[in-house]
């Protein structure tokens, strides 16, 4: 049953849990209707956001489904009716579990329902409500500082994990101690980007229509033609500029630069910069141990920033160290898997340019964040540049989720924001194959304390450094299926 563009548009409200409320009598409807059943044509119906929390009223585990939206490839999955919090109302939906969960508390999260004619239908799915660690609010204070910077942040990392031992077993290799994230069956880089954007906007009252530009950097955009950013924009309620970036692993920081420049130029009030990837790796490639999944969204603006971008510098050259051809499934290394002419050269050049411009030394910074293609490189390049373990370790995310490509540095930055104190200074340098690096000099403001208090779930919880019991470690078979390595 192929869907169509008009149907896609007509089902958006339903899929994004936007109901209708009658202004006349207050009755709320799940469906996108035009008339109130009680007030008829006199009832004025307007859109209303439905609760994203509820309790499962009844459920069933589907073990035989149809090829509609390829749901037969998703079995077993659960469906149910959810009594929405605060409403005398039940919503039908897919529940991301394979058990009957009647009576349990659930929360809505964006997922990929299925694909029809290449088009991806995203929808809210229900997940069991969990208790998460939240960030520890910092103390201290500093001088007020004005400028363009990061106003808010949000991340999303799937809870699926695979260990390198599990992968090595299949490929006859002995690789110990690595862990990486991979997608659940209802997830893709589009749903990651959407969820990180929602998590970013949850803790501020910025009107989404005031976000003039949404940018998604990714190496694994769901569409070759059609921006991921447009899907994010529709969900959050913004309808101005949307653009996707691709610059290998630095497309996310390129989005930050673009947002920063546009806000500074006064052409937009806020820009949303997102890095999101389901990192591709040819199954036999060494990257299979590290290519991970995740997303981070940074809201850039000049009103009440939690951190000011003092300056940035970039360095780019035509270095084809790692490429993926048009319509090719997996990227390839052009030559030895070494960072010397690529990773190290570009990061060091950009970093040195920035420190020269700012007249700073490594010891002027509290955190030093570098792109993390593996566990070794960020630590090594940091030391080569003169940074210490104390500056580097709090920025690491690769140890828990692998290399999340465009999301890597934005995720690292979010992890820093969870722990930073007012006045602390952050040094950041990304790297993207092809090749280039963006370096940033950032200062944390007084506003960070409030933000840390508001965040419900810490980045450490998302990556699995905290709340490790919520992670789902899976077999290579499950990994291969969810990652799209098995053809049906």
């Amino acid at each position, binding site marked *: 049953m192929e869907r169509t563009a008009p149907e896609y548009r007509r089902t958006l409200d339903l899929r994004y849990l936007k109901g209708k409320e009658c202004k006349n009598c207050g009755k709320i409807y799940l469906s996108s209707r035009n008339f109130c059943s009680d007030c008829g044509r006199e009832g004025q119906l307007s859109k209303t956001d439905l609760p994203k929390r509820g309790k499962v009223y*009844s459920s069933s585990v*589907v073990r*035989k489904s149809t*090829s509609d939206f390829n749901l*037969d490839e998703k079995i077993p*999955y659960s*469906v149910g009716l959810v009594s929405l919090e605060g409403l005398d109302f*039940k919503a039908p939906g*897919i529940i991301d579990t394979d058990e009957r969960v009647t009576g349990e508390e659930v929360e809505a999260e964006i997922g990929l329902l299925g694909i029809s004619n290449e088009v991806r239908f995203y929808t809210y799915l229900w997940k069991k409500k969990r208790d998460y660690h939240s960030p520890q609010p910092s103390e201290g204070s500093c001088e007020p500082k004005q400028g363009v910077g990061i106003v808010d942040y949000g991340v999303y990392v799937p809870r699926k994990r695979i260990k390198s031992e599990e992968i090595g077993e299949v490929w006859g290799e002995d690789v110990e101690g690595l862990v990486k994230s991979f997608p659940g069956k209802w997830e893709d880089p589009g749903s990651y980007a959407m969820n990180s954007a929602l998590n970013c906007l949850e803790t501020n009252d910025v009107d989404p229509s005031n976000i003039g530009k949404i940018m998604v950097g990714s190496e694994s955009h769901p569409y070759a033609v059609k921006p991921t950013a447009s899907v994010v924009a529709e969900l959050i309620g913004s309808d101005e500029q949307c653009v996707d970036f691709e610059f290998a692993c630095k497309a996310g920081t390129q989005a930050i630069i673009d947002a920063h420049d546009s806000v500074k130029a006064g052409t937009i009030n806020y820009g949303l910069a997102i890095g999101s990837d389901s990192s591709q790796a040819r199954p036999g490639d060494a990257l299979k141990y590290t290519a991970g999944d995740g997303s981070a969204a940074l809201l850039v603006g000049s009103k009440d920033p939690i951190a000011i971008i003092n300056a940035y510098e970039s360095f780019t050259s035509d270095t084809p160290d790692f490429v993926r051809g048009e319509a090719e499934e997996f990227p390839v290394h052009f030559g030895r898997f070494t960072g010397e002419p690529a990773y190290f050269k570009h990061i060091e050049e950009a970093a040195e340019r920035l420190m020269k411009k700012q007249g700073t030394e490594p010891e002027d910074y509290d955190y030093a964040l570098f792109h993390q293609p593996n566990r070794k490189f960020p630590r090594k390049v940091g030391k080569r540049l003169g940074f210490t373990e104390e500056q580097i370790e709090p920025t690491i995310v690769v140890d828990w989720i692998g290399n999340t490509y465009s999301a890597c540095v934005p995720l690292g930055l979010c992890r820093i924001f969870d722990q930073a104190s007012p006045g602390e200074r952050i040094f950041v340098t990304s790297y993207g194959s092809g090749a280039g690096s963006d370096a940033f000099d950032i200062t944390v403001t007084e506003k960070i304390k409030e933000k840390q208090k508001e965040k419900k779930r810490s980045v450490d919880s998302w990556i699995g450094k905290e709340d490790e019991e919520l992670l789902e470690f899976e077999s290579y078979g499950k990994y291969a299926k969810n990652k799209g390595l098995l053809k049906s």
Partner: protein
Amino acid sequence: MKEKVAVIGVGHTEFGELWDRSWVELVEEAGLEALEDAGIKKNDIEKFFLGNMSLGMFGGQEHTASKVFSEVFDSNPESQILGRRIEGACSSGGLALEASFNDVLAGAHHDEDRIVMAGGFEKMTDKSTDEATKILSAASDMGKEVGFTFPALYGMLKDRYLEETEATEEDFDHIAVKSHKHASKNPRAQYPFEVSHDKVKNSFPVASPTKLLNSSGIADGAAAVLLTTVRKAEELGADYVVIEDVEGVNDSIALYEREDILTLVSTQKAAERVYDSSGLGPEDVDIAEVHDCFSIAEVLALEDLGFYPKKKAWKWIEKSLKDCSENEAPVPYELPDGRELFVNTSGGLKAKGHPVGATGIAQAVEITEQLRGEAGERQVDGAEVGITHNVGGSGGTAVVSLLRKP
């Protein structure tokens, strides 16, 4: 006095995977059997109503009645017949019965004795199980219940029933054992064999808590009943039964809109109306053909039709049916007042088969045969009053009819 409606003839093809027969051949077979049973000819019929859910999707054919006119009536130039297809998902057959019943009454109002054929058919097995399941999903809310297969919708009903009562999953499994027992005595049944409680219990959980053997299958088949006034039936000297009333009522198509999903309001309302108009009640009913597309549906039907208090039927299931493998067919339920009620002596949708559009009519065929004492090895002795209960989707439509011996 108000004229009454009579069933003067019935026809029923075998149900199952009938790959060598087209839908129109099945309709012809059931129709001719009904005509022969009534002792009348094709051209004696003035109208026909054919219940069918989805010939368009299952067979790519629309304009059903004209096709029937060509193939069955051989485009007879003498004929003045008008037919039409009626759609209401799995209750399409029941709706055809309702339309035919009211057409006979409308004629009687004008002092005419119309002979009307109510038929129902579905040709499902030309499609793969996947395609057929997708087509059947069209009976649910296609926009809002994506991913909810029918076994899952009924699974949710069962899940809620288990949540609100002390019933166990195994209680429901006795129902399938009973249905197969009855089907084993029905030569037209799709699954004419017995199954053990263990086999049902251990069958594949297609949409937990719905298991494969709690579910009806996919089948081809057709059924027909000929209706006219009692006056005409007497005149024809037919061995007829009386239809007291046929009532259909709608409810929301999706479960989420219902306050209490364990009450099929459409069934309750339709039953209330037939009881009211006939002056009969559940206490008068001896036999029932209820819409048991899944085991839970039979339980809800018995409650909504008034045989058991709401959310209490489970207490009598095990008690009534636990020894049914050892007992002789038909096996009755024990009612709270100690009476016996025979349910789905045909084998029901579960075991007789469920070619969806045919079901509502096939139920009336079984009740008619029982009331005439022609049900063979599954005959209920002394049956006087019977009820049929046909549901569309998960309760979005329900049609209830009450039949009795003249």
